[in-house]
């Protein structure tokens, strides 16, 4: 039995030893991994950090054997020893008994249509007897607290349940090492909490856990023993958490707010490394800075007569007994940067699809620029509301980036002159000018995401709706992108620039950094609608939306009397005279 393999070797070998590991995919000239060396002990949790394209996924593939078993044609050098054995020399089935992998998207890892069958899948492949399978399925479901899901269809599980199921189907094979690739990506704050305490529990029981994750603040609660920090395939750091926080660049990596501030102060002039308005390096207190802070207009001031989008008593459902949205009333005005926050399944995306006419309300009306959108085609609406879908994969098709951007403009009937002049400027806004002639499919995920934003911006719609713009994006890139978009919005009224934005997200920090208005959506109803510093100060409402106050929010609320509004950490740093005076009650 391969699942006993790890136990046999447990006493004699470390779970994982990596020495001088390098890897290069056959078709690409650059090294995906370059000379990595580290060791992991039993029961340790190791955080693998780095921006997208830094080699995290390649490392994961080397460790779980997909390289070289499934990805052939690349060149690997150096050593990997899992309990003393080289994974390249074992079969994938043997490796799966030692290393259990949970990949980013649980949706893609579920192969069976029912929960029990999904957990059984790995056991079936190993030829385990039926009675033994049943016993182990019960055991795992019990351990994860999801026995009640035993007979449920996998298709109908919530995100959090799917995540647990995937973890369960890995744990049932009893691997000694768990390899988790962004396990929190699709979870809301509470789902995250649950998953983290489960992982902690597993590590305390002796499992070795390697976890790839962007959301540092969340993962630090897990108290990882080590951090492995990768930059462009190279190992920039391997050691304890404190050392990592002291060396990471706060403009590259989103650190907890208080650490970002400490680092910015220590770096002094390094404030300049964060792209943003120029500021005095010396902090000021009680004085609003002379230099204007981020270009956000005050919402809720005077409103012009005609809203850009107006929802009037809108209800929507696919099936009569399962309402998705109920009695939605709100208006979007020029100058609004609205963050729509809410847990998975609250109806955020449905809200946007109703506005652009992809879905039609069962009850109520949606007005676009004063006109009932029932009388408009989707293409007509697109002139007013540009909607960027969450996943770039569903949009990109053109042979070059330039033609991808031009597609929407062609559809809306822009002439060639307008197209030729617009394409370079939107590509500049999303930082893709250098790639103009490349096929969109050759870009990284983050770049593709920015390209889809450019493609919709080019349509010069009056409202820009971004669905989960931070997903799969590096902190540095989305910070830059948002600052540029807001500056465009703030600038002189021009026809080719959006007048308002809607940001659909479940990222609290993102919302508080860039929005001037927050809508909390829960179970298809609007729970709150107002300025961020009022809405996000309501802990009761946040809890109802399964949102958890972050260190950045806490800090912002403390400093609100000085700042008058919420803002990102790099701008907050100007208001803090002496860091020691602040209470950091975030563990």
């Amino acid at each position, binding site marked *: 039995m391969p699942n006993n393999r790890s136990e046999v070797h447990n006493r004699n070998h470390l779970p994982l030893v990596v020495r001088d590991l390098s890897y290069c995919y056959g078709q690409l000239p650059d090294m995906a991994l370059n000379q990595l060396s580290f060791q992991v002990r039993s029961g340790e949790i190791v955080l693998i950090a780095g921006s997208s394209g830094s080699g995290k996924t390649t490392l994961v593939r080397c460790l779980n054997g997909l390289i070289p078993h499934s990805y052939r044609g690349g060149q690997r050098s150096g050593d990997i020893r899992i309990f003393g054995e080289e994974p390249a020399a074992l079969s994938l089935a043997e490796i799966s008994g030692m290393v259990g992998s949970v*990949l980013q998207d649980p949706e893609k890892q579920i*192969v069976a249509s029912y929960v029990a069958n999904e957990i059984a899948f790995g*056991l079936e492949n190993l*030829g385990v007897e039926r009675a033994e399978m049943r016993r182990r399925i019960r055991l795992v479901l019990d351990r994860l607290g999801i026995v009640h899901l035993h007979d449920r269809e996998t298709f109908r599980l919530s995100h959090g349940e799917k995540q647990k199921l995937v973890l369960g189907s890995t744990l049932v094979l009893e691997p000694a090492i768990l390899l988790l690739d962004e396990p929190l990506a699709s979870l809301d704050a509470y789902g995250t909490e649950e998953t983290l305490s489960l992982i902690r529990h597993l590590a305390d029981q002796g499992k070795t856990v390697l976890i790839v994750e962007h959301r540092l603040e969340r993962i630090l609660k897990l108290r990882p023993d080590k951090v492995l920090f990768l930059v462009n395939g190279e190992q920039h750091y391997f050691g304890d958490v404190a050392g990592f926080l002291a060396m990471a660049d706060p403009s590259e990596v989103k650190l907890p707010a208080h650490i970002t501030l400490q680092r910015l102060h220590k770096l002094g002039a390094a404030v300049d490394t964060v792209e943003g308005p120029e500021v005095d390096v010396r902090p000021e207190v009680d004085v609003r800075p002379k230099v204007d802070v981020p270009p956000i207009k005050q919402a809720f001031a005077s409103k012009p007569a005609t809203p850009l989008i107006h929802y009037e008593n809108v209800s929507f459902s696919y099936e009569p007994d399962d309402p998705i949205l109920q009695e939605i009333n709100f208006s979007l005005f020029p100058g609004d940067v609205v963050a729509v926050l809410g847990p998975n399944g609250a109806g955020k995306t449905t809200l946007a699809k109703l506005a652009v006419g992809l879905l039609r309300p069962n009850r109520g009306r949606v007005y676009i620029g004063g006109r009932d959108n029932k009388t408009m085609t*989707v293409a007509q609406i697109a002139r007013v509301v540009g909607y960027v879908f969450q996943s770039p994969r569903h949009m990109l*098709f053109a042979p070059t980036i330039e033609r991808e951007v031009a597609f*929407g403009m062609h559809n809306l009937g822009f002439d060639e002159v307008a197209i030729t002049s617009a394409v370079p400027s939107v590509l500049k806004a999303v930082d893709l000018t250098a790639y103009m002639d490349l096929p969109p499919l050759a870009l990284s995920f983050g770049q593709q995401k920015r390209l889809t934003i450019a493609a*919709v911006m080019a349509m010069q719609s009056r409202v820009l709706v971004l669905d989960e713009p931070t997903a799969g994006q590096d902190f540095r890139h989305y910070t830059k992108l948002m600052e540029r978009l807001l500056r465009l919005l703030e600038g002189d009224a021009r026809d080719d620039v959006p007048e308002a934005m809607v940001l659909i997200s479940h990222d609290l920090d993102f919302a508080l950094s860039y929005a001037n208005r927050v809508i909390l959506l829960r179970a298809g109803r609007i729970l709150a609608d107002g300025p961020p510093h009022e809405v996000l100060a309501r802990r009761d409402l946040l809890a109802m939306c399964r949102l958890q106050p972050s260190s950045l929010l806490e800090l912002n609320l403390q400093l609100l009397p000085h700042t008058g509004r919420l803002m990102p950490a790099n701008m907050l740093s100007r208001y803090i005279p002496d860091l020691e005076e602040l209470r950091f009650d975030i563990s």
Partner: protein
Amino acid sequence: MYVSWRYRERDTVLQRFDPRSRIIFTICVLFSLVQFWDLRFILVFFVLGVVQLWSAQLTWAETKRFWSVLALVILTLSIFTSLTGGAGAAVYESYTPLRTGTLLFTGIPVAIAVSVEQVTFFVTQIVRLVTFGLFALPLPYTIHPARYGIAFRRLGVPDKFAFSTDLAFRFIPSLGQDFQMTLDAQRARGYEVERRGSGLISQIRNMVPLMIPFIVGSIVRSEALIDVLDMRGFGTRPRTWLEELRYERRDYLLLATSLLLLLISTVMNLLDVGNFWTPSFLLVDTI
């Protein structure tokens, strides 16, 4: 949400049968049915199909999408083959005009260009195809999705292929969902499916924004799937199955009936019984 059917446990007689005997029964019925062109015999199958459908206790709401697609396919198919006479030619040879008469006010004799055989063939074909549908329809609604894999395995299909039927249940709906999302995303960019501009080439060109993301997406999805299957040791050795199947007495009865039906139909076919039949009252009426 996007899935077109959903399995529900209803505790019907039909659901208590072993899926293997259900599959064999359906295959036997279909092979029997194809041997008949006589509307009267086909109606016997039709009634059998209606009884089976009734016992499945499906609701109209559940099945209406299936029926509307089926109706469209059957009508198009029947109209084309009957009126062009192409497919019917193999089934009947005579040609009897439906009605003859004189052209209005002129007294010139004319025959309506539709023959008795064409009309009968049209009706027979529709009933025949609907009967196929009647037998195929209840299967996905009444066999537990987790039991297809084991059922096909026990019917002698190799492990890998048998399991792929389980996979299909999960992945075909996801592909549908992907396609819908691509369509939505492109429409939000002002894309219109019914674009003016005729000609096959421009029609095909108009499909590119839908097909490329869909194909690329399917490839990415299947690569991810292969990784997942590999990582959980799929296909490395003979596998076991969590689901268990057992033939009961009713299954043996059903199997015996199925084989008997197929045998009788085949014998009748060999004896030239059940060929194309034109109602005599239609023939008498003409000329």
